[in-house]
């Protein structure tokens, strides 16, 4: 959220590794160092959670201006006005202490090195030799800090402590207690963010065991976030477990499209297969979290039901065809219709660019029957929005729909009366999601349908075109709070899949409606020229975190609470 209207923050001078910096008063030392470009290693600290200071990895040397002994002259400031610092003999943790004026911090001294080395050695004493089977290898803080700060070789000669392994603590999560380094991030997450405190440490001591209470499960809709914040491989996702090594994954910044929230995600893919989605920090949308439901909603991308080739119905049976053939058949059928004999049903799951091309198509086909299928569901008190279409806002803006679904009834009536002879259905499964029936669609002369998966509507359509799914296209969407955000392509679609805007472009062209556009950037350019809200924007200007576009009055419950906690100084944020 913006900084406007807040009282001016008092700034203090602090010295970090010999250089003086100005930071806001009350900043945690670790954050002050981060702002100064010095990374202090840490395990338990997480800016979105409270700081228990239990991992001891972030130990730094601290000093304050020396106070003169009685009778001594007060120390003289140097030419820059800084007082000499007298260093404390013992290190302090940087995560739970805040800065004070003229404070000195040393992160790279012999003492801090020795501390980190010692902490690393202790952490590794009972750590199992699991790297070869541990999913965290490759993004494991333990590995990274061990190499950066730890011993090169092991001095440990004893038996390691045995703890429970491969524990089923919830439907989506597996726990390995031997790997746990007791940072308690997961416990704090379930306590503070997810409000489902089922995790805890039992048998504290050398046998400290992370566990859920007997009979309970870590099953809330945000449980997989604990896997993300686990700095080691103690918590692993059943879904991603053993699927792919993270060092093979290509990371693409994109959006979750399972509801209108538009959580920012990173898609991890290898060779055109999506392996996981993880939340990407965006403090205006999803903080650093996302729901499990949205996170796991990508498996259909590799489903056997994926449409891979354009299909044309010949004698009641669908046959694979080339794109050119499918577009020709479609444009001929659509070209025969008079104005307003065609209805266009687009989707709130389409990107702005696709919706814009749909709008073009509607005007080329000269039809007023345009609508999207509304999808409403339950919202929760965290991130999940009631609107299950990721881009309803965009559809309203671009297609000029006030109330999604209103025109659908008229279209159904038109079909029943025979006024509407052809239907273009883009990325929507009318029969399953909008209550249409196969008989209804059968009455039409021609039904064109694009969709990623085989579905009953496709069965009833005359031409079925394979449309790309969310990870396979570029474009933009507007979430429920009116924020314009960008999707990026992580994988190539299977077979001959095309993005919907490309399909619609070809259709428009075949219907004689203008020249081709070859880049999604150009679509956006034309969109920006025609729709006033987008004026002056381009895809690249949206940036990786998006920009607020329209005001819808919606808020994010989870973010509101986070702001509150930041204001109270409980977390850093």
């Amino acid at each position, binding site marked *: 959220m913006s900084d406007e209207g807040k009282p001016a923050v008092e700034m203090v001078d602090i010295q970090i590794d010999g250089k003086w910096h100005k930071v806001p008063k009350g900043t945690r030392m670790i954050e002050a160092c981060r702002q100064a470009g010095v990374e202090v290693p840490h395990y338990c600290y997480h800016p979105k959670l409270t700081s228990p200071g239990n991992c001891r990895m972030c130990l730094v040397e601290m000093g304050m201006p020396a106070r003169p002994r009685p009778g001594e002259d007060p120390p003289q400031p140097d030419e820059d006005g800084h007082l000499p610092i007298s260093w404390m003999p013992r290190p302090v943790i940087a995560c739970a202490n805040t800065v004070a004026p003229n404070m000195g911090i040393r992160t790279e001294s012999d003492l801090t090195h020795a501390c980190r080395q010692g902490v690393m050695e202790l952490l590794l004493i009972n750590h199992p030799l699991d790297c070869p089977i541990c999913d965290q290898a490759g993004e494991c803080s333990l590995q990274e800090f061990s190499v950066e700060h730890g011993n090169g070789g092991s001095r440990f000669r004893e038996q390691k402590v045995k703890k429970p392994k491969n524990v089923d603590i919830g439907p989506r999560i597996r726990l390995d207690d031997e790997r746990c380094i007791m940072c308690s991030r997961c416990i704090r997450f379930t306590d503070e963010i997810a409000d489902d405190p089922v995790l*805890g440490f039992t*048998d504290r*001591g050398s*046998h400290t065991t992370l566990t859920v*209470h007997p009979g309970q499960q870590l099953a809330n809709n945000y449980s997989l976030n604990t896997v993300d914040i686990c700095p080691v491989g103690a918590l692993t996702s059943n879904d991603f477990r053993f699927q792919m090594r993270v060092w093979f994954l290509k990371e693409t910044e994109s959006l979750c499209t399972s509801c209108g929230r538009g959580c920012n995600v990173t898609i991890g893919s290898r060779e055109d297969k999506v392996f996981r989605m993880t939340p990407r920090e965006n403090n205006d949308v999803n903080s650093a979290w996302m729901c499990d439901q949205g996170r796991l909603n990508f498996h259909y991308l590799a489903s056997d039901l994926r449409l891979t080739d354009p299909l044309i119905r010949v004698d009641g049976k669908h046959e694979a065809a080339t794109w050119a053939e499918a577009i020709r058949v479609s444009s001929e059928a659509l070209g025969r219709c008079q104005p307003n004999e065609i209805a266009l049903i687009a989707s709130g799951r389409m990107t702005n660019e696709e919706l814009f091309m749909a709008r073009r198509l509607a005007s080329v086909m000269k039809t007023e029957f345009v609508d999207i299928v509304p999808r409403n569901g339950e919202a929760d008190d965290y991130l999940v929005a009631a609107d299950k279409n990721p881009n309803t806002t965009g559809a309203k803006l671009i297609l000029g729909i006030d109330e999604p679904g209103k025109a659908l009834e008229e279209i159904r009536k038109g079909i029943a009366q025979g006024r509407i002879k052809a239907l273009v259905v883009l990325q929507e499964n009318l029969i399953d999601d909008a209550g249409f029936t196969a008989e209804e669609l059968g009455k039409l002369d021609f039904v064109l349908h694009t969709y990623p998966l085989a579905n009953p509507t496709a069965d009833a359509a005359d031409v079925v075109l394979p449309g790309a799914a969310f990870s396979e296209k570029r474009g933009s969407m507007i979430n429920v709070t009116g924020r314009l955000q960008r999707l990026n392509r992580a994988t190539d679609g299977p077979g001959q899949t095309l993005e919907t805007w490309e399909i619609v472009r070809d259709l428009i062209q075949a219907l004689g409606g203008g020249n081709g556009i070859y880049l999604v950037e150009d679509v956006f350019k034309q969109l920006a020229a025609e729709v006033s809200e987008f004026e002056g924007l381009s895809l690249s200007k949206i940036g990786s975190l998006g920009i607020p576009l329209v005001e819808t009055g919606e808020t994010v419950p989870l973010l509101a609470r986070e702001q509150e906690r930041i204001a109270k100084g409980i977390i850093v944020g």
Partner: protein
Amino acid sequence: MEVPADLEKEIDERITHYPVSKRSAVLPVLHALQHHFGYLSNEAVEWTAAKLELQPIKVLEVVTFYPGFRQSAPGKYHIRVCRTLSCAMAGSAELMESLCESAKIDRSSVSHHHPIAVSEDGQFSIEFAECLASCGFGPVCMVNDDFHEKVEDAGALLGKYRD
């Protein structure tokens, strides 16, 4: 698990000692329950959690932390053998062995999580304890609340209690 009304009353009273946060009452409540039932069952933990408006896991964390809390039922006579340095040097391991032998206790299933072993007849249970504060007179052990120093004859000791 049925908590008797008078016990609950006593517990309620103890809770009132902590007006700021009921959470602080967790130890007294647990002590009261263990005193009554002899150990803290899972139901007891959950009862406590409900009583103090806590999550059960938070209570379990406390229960597992203190060796004074037992999670399984002990025998009628619970023996604690000191194993801290001076007793250990004075032969607490041997004492444990002879006690087990004479009480017919099998300690092979004892683990960190379940330190207590109970005899077949349920008469005796035994566990190691840390310093019982009589280092000059080891080996030392306690049977229920009775304190025994310089224990040499395990059979004789147990004989005093055997029904």
